[in-house]
């Protein structure tokens, strides 16, 4: 079970590093609006997916992991936002932090649905974890492909 989650986390981080490399290589082409949009989408999805994977990997330490996820989202947003100017820096930091908080919340509700007053699901824990690992890979891949194709259009 852990091997799937660890490999999922590494695949998603590899996607993120590749996306940063591609966006950083051609940053002289940006105008203001495209810098804002690219920072917004990249930092939101990367923060969300990284926080969700990390929470599924360590579900027992809520306090420390929430703080780490928030700081991780802020660091991702700062990294992507510092490519252009102050406007994209603010957008990246804010949306990365929001993505980190939201991924932590989604992971907490997934692992224990009684937080929101839902009844326990019929599925086992392994099926839930495999489902959300595959969903995170799909979301990350589709977002990266859409962001890369924006240079063609």
């Amino acid at each position, binding site marked *: 079970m852990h091997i799937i989650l660890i490999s999922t986390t590494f695949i998603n981080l590899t996607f993120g590093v590749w996306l940063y490399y591609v966006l950083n290589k051609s940053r002289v082409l940006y105008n203001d609006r*495209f810098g804002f949009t690219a920072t917004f989408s990249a930092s939101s999805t990367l923060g969300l997916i990284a926080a969700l994977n990390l929470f599924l990997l360590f579900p027992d330490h809520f306090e420390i992991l929430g703080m780490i996820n928030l700081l991780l989202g802020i660091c991702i947003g700062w990294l992507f936002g510092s490519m252009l100017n102050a406007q994209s820096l603010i957008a990246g930091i804010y949306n990365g932090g929001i993505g980190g908080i939201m991924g932590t919340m989604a992971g907490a509700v*997934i692992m224990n649905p009684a937080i929101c007053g839902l009844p326990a699901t019929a599925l086992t824990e392994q099926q839930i974890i495999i489902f959300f690992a595959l969903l995170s890979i799909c979301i990350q891949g589709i977002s990266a492909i859409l962001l890369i194709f924006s240079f063609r259009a």
Partner: protein
Amino acid sequence: MPEWIILFYPLNFFSAYILYIYIYNRRKQIGFHLGMNIAMVAAGGMALGTGIISINLYPLYFLETTLFAVVIGSITGILFGNLFDYQTLLTGYINGLMMGIMAPMVGAAASEGILFLIMIEVFIISCFFILASSAYKS
């Protein structure tokens, strides 16, 4: 929760379809600021409505509800953003995805009364009306 809240699905989809047809005829006159706001509001509203209604109809299926809301929100954002620009498409897609992950939790936390659902529907439909009127003025 009563069973007739399933009638909110056709209401949402039909009003979004009418809004799409209405904006499609006027898409050359709308600038990209208004276009970005149209894509964000349409994608977020559709994802919110779909997630809240679906988690109240089937409280046992959390995963399928989340997947359904995410797919509906993303497709709505892509369709509405594709009218204007590529960056509008990206913005609508991301906003639909985030609201789709958020919406089943909101619906599950407020699963007591029917009044909240009716207020959410009024909010979404009035947002669509404001979008249509702002597209009419431009």
